[in-house]
């Protein structure tokens, strides 16, 4: 192909590409994220209402306006156990700023009798919720434990961390980002 023909072709290509950019403008103004509840960064965190060990019901959407960490765990899960003390530390450091932890025990896959002694022994003070029917495991598409969902004040998911134990620095950097 001669140089002039090639350059004309390139100009046509760039012009067509520019036209495609304008044609594919997202007129709705947003991506899918935020409109559909899904356990994925940028999406609205699936809502739930669960009972705590004390029998109190906590609903996730009632905490809108506060950054929340939803942590899925089980007593038999070693990395879950390893990170719980760190969660307690950061919970105590940031709770006065509006941050909270919701530790959702996968009770349908755990020993319900083991949960209270486990929590008492470790002196955990953040809310422990019981997923007796496995609804949260399904809604959050749990594939591995622990799974942690950092949720912004507006209810959208800031980050998903699969596996653990989470380092204290990871928790603090994410929480401080959500508190800004």
């Amino acid at each position, binding site marked *: 192909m001669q*140089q002039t023909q*090639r*350059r004309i072709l*390139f100009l046509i*290509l*760039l012009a067509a*590409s*520019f036209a*495609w*950019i*304008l*044609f*594919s*403008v*997202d*007129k*709705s*103004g*947003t*991506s*899918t*994220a935020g409109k*559909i*509840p*899904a356990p*994925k960064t*940028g*999406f609205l965190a699936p809502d739930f209402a669960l009972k705590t060990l004390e029998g109190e019901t906590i609903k996730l959407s009632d905490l809108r306006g506060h950054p929340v960490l939803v942590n899925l765990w089980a007593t038999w899960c070693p990395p879950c156990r390893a990170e719980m003390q760190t969660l307690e530390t950061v919970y105590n450091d940031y709770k006065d700023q509006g941050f909270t932890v919701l530790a959702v025990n996968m009770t349908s896959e755990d020993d319900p009798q083991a949960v209270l002694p486990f929590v008492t022994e470790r002196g955990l003070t953040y809310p422990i919720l019981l997923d007796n029917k496995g609804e949260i495991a399904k809604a959050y598409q749990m*594939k*591995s434990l622990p799974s942690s969902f950092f949720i912004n004040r507006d209810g959208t998911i800031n*980050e*998903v*961390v*699969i*596996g653990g134990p*989470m*380092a*204290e*620095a*990871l928790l*603090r*950097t994410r929480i*401080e980002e959500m508190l800004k």
Partner: protein
Amino acid sequence: MLNLFRSLFAPPRHLILVFAAVWLGLTLAEKRVSRHGILKEVFDNLVYYSILAYALGGRILFVLEHLQVFINSPLSIFSPNIDLFDPLGALATAILVGVVYGQRQKLPFWATLDALTPLFATLAIGLHLSHLAAGTAFGRPTALPWGMELWNAIRHPTQVYELIASIFIFAFLWLRKPGSLAGFDFLCFTALTAGSRLILEAFRGDSSLIFNGIRSTQVAAWFILAAALIAGEILRTREKTA
């Protein structure tokens, strides 16, 4: 089949696909490195040092960006959590180290990029596979029959679109007859990848938007495409006048 694949390589196991792609890409690149006038050992060192720089640079820069947090929790510096990482900083560090090493070894710039192109092309395939496994880089909702259920909607399987495009790009570059113009392979890869991204971004559901709905990635891809085409013309002109 797709569900089995996604279950097998669910995060964080999706990274296995990227590592496998790097290994395969390096193996393929080594097969052809001599045609670019580069020693295999020097090429391997370039890649290894760059990968090491990527890993270390990403962690070190993340620590520096959140220094106060790590001062209070110094052991976290050595944490295996992969989220304690700055990917853009890591890439910049890898490129810097690669350029410095290349200059010290007096590697020819364009020929080296050509030698690295099979690695880049294979890495692109691995990245799209990992997106498919992890459900990232997802598409916007669609009613088309080949839509894929993901994140509570039937969506364009943009990971599959991009995977197919990257496989075609790799095949085109691998199977084409070698030319004499140094830099052509790399610029061709760059232009084709930018072009495919520009087209396929229109089907994405996670686009970052600017100026009333324009997808920023498409704008960046347009400029990269233009730069690759212009650079190719400059190289052709230089070869003619040389």
